[in-house]
């Protein structure tokens, strides 16, 4: 999709204006959709459980557009893409393990809160 200019060096890939504007309008459309579903979703009968996954799917689509075309990932060296995507893997690992752990011991915090609030009432 990049322009072909014979006089450009090999590492220079200008992206056509048409494509950039196309991506931009795509992004705007997705933003409007996500705000609209959030504001009107329940009115239109969308189950509330869908709202969050839908918002995340739309965000990921937007992120893909930005990465692939604005950030030239589509044409970039695969090593760079790999490096960037690997960071997401480590973030997932970080979130996953801590979430698993805190989820497990959450009852001990809730029990503590309940007892301590009860104590406060007794003392006052």
């Amino acid at each position, binding site marked *: 999709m990049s322009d072909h200019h014979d006089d450009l060096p090999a590492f220079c890939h200008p992206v056509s204006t048409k494509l950039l504007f196309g991506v931009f309008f795509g992004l705007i459309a997705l933003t409007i959709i996500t705000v609209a579903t959030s504001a009107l979703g329940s009115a239109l009968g969308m189950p509330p459980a869908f709202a969050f996954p839908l918002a995340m799917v739309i965000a990921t689509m937007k992120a893909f557009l930005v990465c692939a075309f604005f950030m030239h990932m589509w044409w970039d060296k695969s090593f760079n893409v790999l490096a960037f995507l690997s960071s997401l893997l480590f973030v997932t690992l970080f979130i996953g393990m801590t979430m698993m752990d805190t989820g497990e011991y959450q009852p*001990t915090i809730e029990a*503590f809160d309940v007892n301590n609030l009860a104590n406060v009432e007794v003392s006052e």
Partner: protein
Amino acid sequence: MNWQLPLMLAQTDSSRLEELRERTEAISMQGTTVPDSSLVREGTSNPFATEYWFPTQASSFAGEVDFLYMAVFWISLIFFVAIVGSMVYFCVKYRRKDGVIAPEPSSSHNTAIEILWSVLPSIILVWIFYVGAETWFEMRIPKENAEEIQVTAKQFGWLFTYEDGDQTNELHLVRDKPVRLIMQSEDVLHSFFVAAFRQKMDIVPGRYTYAYFEPIKDGVYRLSCNEYCGTGHSKMKTACIVHTSEEDRKNNTKWIEAEKTPFENGQRIYQIHCSGCHKVDGQPATGPALNLIWGKNERMIDGTTELVDEDYVLDSIWYPEKHIVEGYGPVSKMNSFKGILDQKDVDYVIAYLKELKDQSGDAK
């Protein structure tokens, strides 16, 4: 009256431990049961364990922990001797002579041997993991009939509350009676650690943590805080006393309970609630020393002076923000004891303070 003995409870030093050991031994001898030599149960006895290397095995799983420790120790030793032995042997045999570089031709790659020395240790590692995890489940998952003891840790002391509502700052247990500690912290992280039980668990503010064990050997053991908690971390030690029977436990804690003069009640409250921050030897700690303050005019941080009388003591215990003594500001580090100590308790404390003042005065 010998009031000095219980005074040492707050920060149990070694002589205190010895004293307790003698005392409990004496009680055991008089008591119903004689220490039983068959206490170390079948399957937990450990041929490698030595008293030199480890503290006493006083909990049901201590033997298993030590077994794994010694097993790993021997495995490591074999590997270590093999590694260092061959290293030294090669260094002697193949050392460069007269500066002439002459390595003998030999292969620099062998996939078979690489795989071999990756897989063999892996098998041993899986075994170690398995044995470790098995014992650990025993250590972490309590039996249903376990006695529940509430543990409150704070800078820098312990408070144990038993099922019958009694409170001590030494942990009293009964042999062969499984215990589940329900632990909470009033301030920062602490950690419950009794080496003889091989059990350890952090105490995290804002939630409960639990520790479980079954003492199988009577005696007096060191209980220490194992997670760094501030200035007095190394002083946050107390005794864990395992009695041979429930009766013994009652008898043994009673010698504190029996003499119930207001002074002694006050002293006991001091031990449990105040001794972490206030000393009675005239030395300032987190808070001012308490032995000479009664009837004194104390300077406050705002420059005023306050007479230490009944009102002052009550205010200081219930509303610590009200009077802040010079040198301990800018804000009070003390939590309010309103709701924990009632008017009567405060009276006991006052009796204790008065007596302390007299005692110290006499000494001088």
